[in-house]
């Protein structure tokens, strides 16, 4: 019984691992310089594939994603910094191309409202507890 459960768990985990490694980078794109390749992969993971739904260009097999992956690699080989590559892309495609929205005046609410909600929630719970403690004491 226990062995069977263990088998099932291990097979599920193995499937998960193979899913984690799935990506769309094609062999001919990969750079010989491993350091450059790692940098390219990191950047690609943060760049949105504009024609897909919430996929990075690292995950997408669409042709525009491939073009951008190749472009990022050639920019790295030309000696551009990561920052310069992000700037190059946002200048053309806007902030939308970044999967993580940058902290700017128009995104302050997006970044800080969750903390405000958390605070409100904590206050509500504390207040509620205080009341119910009083009620129990009575």
């Amino acid at each position: 019984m226990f062995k069977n459960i263990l088998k099932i768990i291990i097979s599920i985990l193995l499937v998960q691992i193979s899913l984690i490694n799935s990506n769309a980078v094609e062999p001919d794109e990969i750079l010989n310089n491993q350091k450059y390749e790692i940098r390219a992969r990191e950047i690609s993971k943060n760049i949105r594939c504009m024609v897909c739904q919430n996929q990075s260009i690292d995950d997408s097999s669409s042709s525009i994603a491939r073009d951008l992956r190749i472009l990022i690699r050639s920019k790295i080989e030309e000696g551009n910094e990561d920052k310069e590559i992000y700037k190059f892309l946002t200048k053309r495609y806007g902030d939308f191309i970044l999967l993580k929205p940058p902290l700017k005046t128009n995104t302050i609410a997006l970044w800080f409202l969750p903390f405000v909600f958390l605070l409100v929630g904590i206050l509500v719970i504390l207040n509620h507890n205080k009341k119910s403690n009083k009620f129990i004491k009575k």
Partner: protein
Amino acid sequence: MKNQFLKLPIIIFFIILFIFFYLLIIDRNPSKVPSALLNKSVPSFNAETLFKNKKFSSSEEFGGQVILVNFFATWCKPCRNEHVFIKRFAEDQNIKVIGINYKDDAEKAIEWLKKLGNPYSSVAIDKNGKIAIDWGVYGIPETFIVNSKGKIKYRHVGAITAKRYKKINQIIKEIE
């Protein structure tokens, strides 16, 4: 005191609900991204051309009048659908239209334009999609309106329909 505190989350909840409904009701398409290049100068580029034996140079082509820039390819079905409107811009409205042939076979493109009519004053060849990336293009067809100072004023992603044709004409008139 207790009631007041409980009211706050409910009020916030309804505000959020209202915002969601508002965004649902107003006429907008969240998958269409405004161009980051709006009100910026056209990206400069040089390219081979389809018909002329001359190189395409953006610095020579833009400026002096309102120009439409249309990214197209023969393999793209919506491009064929909108072609009739691109022709109307050039023929009926007398607007200079520059075509950018995206990742296409030059021979096929020439044949395609001979068959369907060629509304383009010149056609630049974007063999590997590099020009498209400079324009922030992510899917063709895409059409841009460039004003007489060489600044991008409008961008349309997708095929031009009869409704969009009217709207683009209106925008061109406003710009002129």
